């Protein structure tokens, strides 16, 4: 990267212009006609909530995905990126949110993966190592080129990812949440590198959930909401409040907390629970956390990525071991029980990742729905087809799954209906406490509202509901109580009358007050 980048003179200020970009996944529109400009030598930050379409837009600009319709102009000429390699050859590279490194290879091999330097005899490893060392020096990181990536801590791995993007002399560099695992000093170094790059005419697109941090570095702000650009402005003219206001906007009505009944006894009691980090560091992902949930109550857990929400819910459900504390269900200690035993006592989890943890793709809609409650239709040794049938049909009606029939393959359903199957499957076990990890992830607004309405109905019948979310707007729907988690602890508790700004402030996303 020390060699001067070979830039063609850009036509005017705008290096890349995306026009009217639409991207649909089946029936869901992730982007609805977006215009996006990248200006030469400037940092453009894209703000937006989860699911607003930020990552999708960046994937399109970097050739990972092709738009459903719309055009991209590079230096005023229309281009179509056939692949990431194609986009990289044209000077666009991306640092992904999820690391895309091979952990079994060295830092050097990762940085030059796919574009190894040829020497007289095979590969020029010495030159690769030299360039790697220079990149690391630029990033002020003391990592030997031959270190295996798996031996680095997460922050250092992110540095390697950044170094790889820098090593190709890109003129447009997209950074999707580059700082999520970095320490404060590492972030400062990264910002210095970004300023160096922009001074040399490189354009940066920056995405971050840490609004303040992003506001420090950006020249230009673009806000995306529900697949449309809602606002653009120069950084010097705006403040955090402006960003939050445009990010959140007027929301689709996600309902209100069910009322007209009194909460029952404490159904779930999380008592001083700690969970160790699976990657082996001494950090606790959940740190001595306590929480009581009453029958009929809906509790929302808000937090940024890495706040420990998923770990907490998986631990309560019995999937993850805890390192301290206990979990009580209706006053009885269930800490040592298996997942199956917890389900039979009335504690169920709807996992975050539907495809990986929620559904059996090889089975039909019906078989998925009845999987958790097989005991309810076993007669003697045999399954009773008729009882199963009526159970499945009842659940399909109850949770309003739109399917061609119980025998349809589960893959034929839309994301929202798949989610209803996962929820319906757990509801047929007649639970007392239902945990849902990001139940709205990857489903459209209509399905979201239906899912929340369903949870509201069940809560009114006495079900204790705990759901997690990373979208502020969802906290303000049906939840009676909002818990904000930050670094494994509860940083604030609110009633249903809280504002979005208060929640975001407590999560560490933005400090407004």
């Amino acid at each position: 990267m020390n060699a001067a980048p070979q830039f063609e003179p850009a036509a005017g200020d705008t290096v890349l212009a995306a026009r009217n970009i639409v991207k649909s996944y089946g029936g869901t529109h992730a982007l609805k006609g977006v215009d996006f400009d990248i200006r030469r030598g400037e940092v453009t930050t894209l703000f937006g909530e989860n699911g607003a379409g930020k990552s999708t837009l960046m994937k399109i600009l970097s050739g990972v995905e092709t738009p459903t319709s719309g055009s991209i102009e590079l230096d005023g000429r229309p281009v179509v990126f056939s692949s990431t390699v194609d986009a990289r050859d044209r000077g666009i590279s991306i640092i992904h949110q999820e690391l895309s490194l091979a952990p079994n290879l060295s830092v050097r091999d990762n940085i030059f993966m796919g574009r190894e330097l040829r020497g007289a005899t095979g590969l020029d490893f010495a030159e690769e190592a030299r360039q790697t060392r220079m990149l690391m020096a630029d990033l002020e990181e003391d990592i030997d080129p031959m270190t295996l990536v798996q031996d680095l801590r997460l922050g250092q791995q992110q540095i390697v990812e950044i170094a790889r993007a820098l090593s190709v002399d890109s003129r447009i560099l997209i950074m999707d949440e580059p700082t999520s695992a970095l320490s404060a000093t590492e972030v400062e170094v990264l910002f210095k590198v970004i300023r160096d790059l922009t001074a040399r005419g490189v354009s940066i697109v920056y995405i971050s959930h840490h609004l303040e941090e992003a506001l420090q570095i950006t020249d230009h702000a673009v806000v995306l909401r529900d697949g449309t650009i809602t606002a653009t402005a120069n950084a010097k003219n705006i403040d955090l409040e402006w960003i939050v206001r445009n990010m959140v906007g007027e929301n689709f009505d996600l309902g209100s907390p069910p009322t007209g009944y009194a909460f029952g006894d404490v159904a779930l009691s999380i008592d001083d629970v700690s969970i160790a980090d699976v990657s082996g560091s001494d950090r606790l992902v959940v740190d001595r956390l306590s929480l009581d949930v009453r029958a009929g109550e809906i509790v929302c857990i808000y937090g940024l990525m890495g706040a420990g929400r998923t770990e907490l819910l998986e631990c309560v459900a019995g999937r993850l071991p805890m390192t301290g504390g206990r979990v009580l269900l209706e006053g009885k200690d269930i800490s040592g029980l298996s997942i199956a035993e917890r389900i039979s006592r009335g504690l169920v989890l709807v996992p975050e990742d539907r495809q990986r943890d929620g559904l059996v793709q090889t089975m039909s809609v019906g078989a998925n729905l009845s999987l958790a409650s097989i005991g309810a239709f076993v007669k003697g040794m045999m399954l009773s087809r008729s009882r199963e049938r009526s159970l499945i049909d009842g659940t399909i009606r109850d949770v309003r799954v739109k399917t061609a029939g119980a025998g349809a393959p589960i893959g034929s359903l839309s994301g929202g209906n798949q989610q209803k199957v996962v929820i319906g499957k757990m509801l047929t076990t007649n639970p007392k406490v239902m945990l849902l990890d990001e139940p709205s992830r990857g489903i459209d607004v209509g399905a979201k509202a239906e899912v929340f309405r369903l949870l509201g109905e069940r809560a009114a019948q006495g079900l204790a509901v705990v759901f997690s979310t990373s979208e502020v707007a969802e906290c303000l729907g049906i939840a009676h109580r909002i818990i904000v988690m930050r670094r494994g602890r509860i940083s604030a508790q609110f009633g249903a009358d809280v504002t979005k700004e208060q929640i975001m402030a407590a999560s560490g996303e933005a400090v407004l007050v």
Partner: protein
Amino acid sequence: MTSASQNRSRPGSTTSSDGFSVAKLLLEGRAFLALMVIILVFSMLSPYYFSLGNFLTMASHVAIFGILAVGMLLVILNGGIDLSVGSTLGLSGVIAGFLMQGVQLQTLGIVLFPPVWVVVVLVCVLGALVGLVNGVLIAWLKVPAFVATLGMLYVVRGAALLMTNGLTYNDLGGKPELGNTGFDWLGFNRLFGIPIGVLVMVVITIIGSIILNRTAFGRWLYASGGNERAAELSGVPVKKVQVSVYMLSGICASVAGLILSSELTSAGPTAGNSYELTAIAAVVIGGAALTGGRGNIRGTLVGAFVIGFLSDGLVIIGVSAYWQTVFTGAVIVLAVLLNAIQYRRRVKLPGSTGGPSTSPQQAGKARTADPAHEKIAG
């Protein structure tokens, strides 16, 4: 097609993918079609092939592989593999032979001659124990199934060789005065003109079919093979299921070992060498996916018949043993190739929509069903 979903789609209920077409029918029933072609071709080539007597003889050959394949199917549905069944078959025969010679209890100075039914039970327990070791290694100690059962393949074969010093038990008849006659019944007798071995296969097939389609265990097996994480979160005892399938596979191998040594009237420690591969081939030809969750007994049985009828047919028309091997291999590859086509079509089904954040998961889903991962067979 998984039998679970097949049984569920009643006639009249229109599911989006169940369009009726000849091509689809041929693809789904390809193993059966292959069997018909094999019978037709060999019947034309040899006058001896198409006769009840020959079919029954071939069926009794098929029985050994068929029984092994039913056990193997359970393991493969779970997403595993059991390479130890051939060795378990061999050891079972040797143990049966050993028990038939009488067990000397030196401290008491007596020789026990267990009756045949006790021998059968003990041998089946042995098979279950081998399966238990496999299952514990795989489910609890997290050894990959391929490696664990490969290790057991050697250990069990070695044990069989050690028991007899490499020799063969030739006297399995028992003596009337000791009350342990009747071992040859399994391999030689017929009920209603049908060899006992074939009847045992039929019984095991029916039991297997009931387990898979009508019991909670069967549903658990399909679920944990299709997506272990989802099954576990739904309260399925995935580890128990995993251990159980290896135990059932071991029992099937023992039963096959008993029938084989009875048919041969001798029990050699090298019996059943490489039979595990034939069993895997039968399961694969029968349409099961090596990635787990997909397959059924009917297909597996037809798969076993395809292999058995093909190789016996080649013997009857006098094709050399070397060519037989080539033909069998070609049939297996062809079957897996067709599996790949079938499952690729299924991945491309319309729907599975989701927001942008689900797209990496969809890629993951496609990967689980990727037929390219099914290449270990053969």
